[in-house]
């Protein structure tokens, strides 16, 4: 029966588990896309608000994590519809918006500055695939599930993104090294 106290308790218990498990990953996702800006708290709030409203639509673990990432992606793109604005945000991230006490060593590394700038110049679909794999640490299969594409398509996007980064950043990143994107059936990747 819908609407009983028992249902309400079940619902809240499920949401509590979700919140405890993924509050930090969703926050990390938002920081990874926007940098440590004030909007991160608003984005996390909107993602979990959506999760509370649509709890019945959220798949069981491990799919719930990908559902939350997908929701966070949509929330961010809705807020920053303009691609140029997103690029400028990433550029800002590469420049002066980081808390200095936390990021002092990182900010002094010009190679990472260039890497962030190069990531900001990637095609959005390639960049998202790359960041899900390398920053959110998803397997190719998990990232493909998050983006709603095939594992092969995901692998191609990551491969293209990395090839582009190697080209932009030059030889210190192993640009002459072959980069096979071998995808095992379980979605675990080798060699790229």
């Amino acid at each position, binding site marked *: 029966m819908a609407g009983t106290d028992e249902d*309400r308790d079940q*619902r*809240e218990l499920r*949401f*509590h588990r979700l*919140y*405890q498990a993924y*509050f*930090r990953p969703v*926050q*990390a*996702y938002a*920081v*990874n896309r926007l*940098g*440590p800006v004030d909007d991160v*708290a608003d984005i*996390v*709030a909107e993602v*979990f*608000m959506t999760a*509370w*409203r*649509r*709890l019945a639509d959220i798949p069981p673990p491990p799919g719930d994590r990908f559902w939350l990432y997908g929701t966070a992606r949509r929330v961010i793109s809705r807020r920053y519809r303009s691609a140029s604005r997103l690029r400028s945000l990433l550029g800002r*991230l590469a420049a002066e918006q*980081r*808390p200095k006490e*936390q*990021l002092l060593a*990182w900010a002094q590394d010009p*190679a*990472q500055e260039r*890497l*962030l700038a190069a*990531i900001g110049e990637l095609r959005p679909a390639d960049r998202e695939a*790359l960041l899900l794999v*390398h*920053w959110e640490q998803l397997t190719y299969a998990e990232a493909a599930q998050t983006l709603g594409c095939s594992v092969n398509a995901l692998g191609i996007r990551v491969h293209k993104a*990395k090839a582009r*980064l*190697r080209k932009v*950043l030059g030889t*210190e*990143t*192993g640009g002459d090294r072959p980069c096979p994107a071998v995808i095992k059936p379980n979605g675990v990747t080798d060699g790229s």
Partner: protein
Amino acid sequence: MDLDTMLAGAAPARQVSLDGPDSPAAVSLYRRITAQPPAAAPARRRGRFAVPALTAAAVAGASATVALALIPGSPPRIPAPRRILTPPPPRSSARRR
């Protein structure tokens, strides 16, 4: 340096300390969210799709009607007005003779 190592090290979230779900801000957000009643989201979603679907169906129906009317040789949709038949004038008997 290897690109994978560089990428891993460049993740902004690794450079900042993130709040946990038990931080005061997170607990406050949790209370705010769960204080809301479960929304009737499915009903709203049905309504959201029903209006465009009905509009599309109406437009498709009107287009089909116009297209059928424009096809050469298709039966006229408005019947022609019936001719009023008037009885022939009576023939004069003198002529017959």
